[in-house]
């Protein structure tokens, strides 16, 4: 139960990194990556996943 980032479409704006309530997103190598062990899909905190809600690119931050 986690989200993932499609690296080829990511603009690397970093908004998801600071919106993530679980600290699950970081810049690794050349891309932003979601740590599936930390990602909670925002359950119990927000109604919708913050990373997917703020992402400017359609279908780029999606269920893994």
């Amino acid at each position, binding site marked *: 139960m986690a989200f993932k980032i499609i690296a080829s479409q990511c603009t690397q704006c970093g*908004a998801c990194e600071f919106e993530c309530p679980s600290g699950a997103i970081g810049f690794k190598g050349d891309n932003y990556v979601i740590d599936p062990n930390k990602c909670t899909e925002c359950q119990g905190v927000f109604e919708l996943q*913050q990373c997917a809600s703020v992402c400017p690119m359609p279908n780029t931050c999606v269920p893994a």
Partner: protein
Amino acid sequence: MSAPIVSLESLTNATSSGQLLRTARSGGGVSSSCGLSSRPTDMDEATWEKINDHPCFSEEAHHYFARMHVAVAPACNIQCNYCNRKYDCANESRPGVVSEKLTPDEALRKVIAVANDVPQLSVLGIAGPGDACYDWKKTRATFERVAKEVPDIKLCISTNGLALPEHVDELAEMNVSHVTITINMVDPAVGEKIYPWIFYGHRRYTGIDAAKILHERQMLGLEMLTERGILTKINSVMIPGVNDQHLIEVSKWVKKRGAFMHNVMPLISDPAHGTCFGLTGQRGPTAFELKALQDRLEGGAKLMRHCRQCRADAVGLLGTDRGQDFTVNQIPADVAYDASKRHAYREVVARMREDHLAAKNEAIAMVASASIRGSLQVAVATKGGGRVNQHFGHAKEFQIYEASQTGIKFVGHRKVEQYCHGGWGEDATLVDIISALEGIDIVLCAKIGDCPRDQLIEAGIRATDAFGYDYIETAISALYAAEHGIDLLQATA
């Protein structure tokens, strides 16, 4: 006016501050102690103090001073139909486009490198490429580092306004003196056509709700800035058929809330940019439509007509971009700030501006006093310093002035491709330049070859280098007098 012609180029190319001052002083004859200020008569001293070296807030200052943007804030909280943030190209010049994103530490190094090398530098702005207020931690970290190392630079941000109210107090504390808010509507029904969504309070809003929240936050932010005495500029993108007429209403709303300046910019729209408007075929306004709207807005907040819609990583005088000379890999890891070149330049410019202002006022008074009906549209090739000092073939833009019975007014600029490429001119480029100069009566430049001059004449546009190196307004007034057969001396006597 017997102004010495010290070319600004000789100043900015000087390698040391001592050399800079010697070059300037060797011009001789400029009085620096007559107590004149180049402040316009219709502006209070405190406001003038804030804008007199800000190229974006003062048309007069943009002849002398440069800005730089550091692209430290890539995250954004709204989507605009005229923006595609995936785009990244060194040859594109429009807001939101950058070649490299910087960390606050890299930004500090870049600011120091530019300040050491570009004496005209007076302002550091953060204009994204996302939103400076939303990507706040990076914006704040950058300003804090720069204020400590380069204390004599003005700090400035550009924002869509959504996250602005929560940071106004911090902006005031950090001495951010100028804020630009992009406001394209004051009616959410119009906003809905421009903004597909916003991200606010941990959720995404779409449609009319999104536009309504954005509008309320923009107005609140503007009012809060005005209360704290921070100067504001409102940028509006003119989108024909969407908000063009509506911008008259926008102008009234923002003026009422204390906006200092209103800048109406044309929509840049091209399918190749991959923006929503680009792909749907939404067109931008023509130069005539833009000017007609700007003319209708006169009398509201002060109008900015000299905006070049620069990139989020632009460096240099407006109209030139030296950003590519200062990419991070060209900057040494250890670079120390040296203020001497900038200080020397400021001293020189302060003297020149007094002389320029006196010449300008005299020229404007002459044209106004001639009270002749009809206007003259003049395109000027200039490299800065308020003079006709660029070769026709080197111009990448022409500044447009209008001489009429109200005086001489700067009304905008037209971008062109450079015609001359080291000894030869490109005919196809000349055709494009001629079409960009539509409606212009006369082109003033420092030098022009016979071939382009003849082709311009065929297109009904005269070009002359007879006023090369004169102040722009002085040249235009002489031209105006010649056109209408007025004796200059009699007219001003």
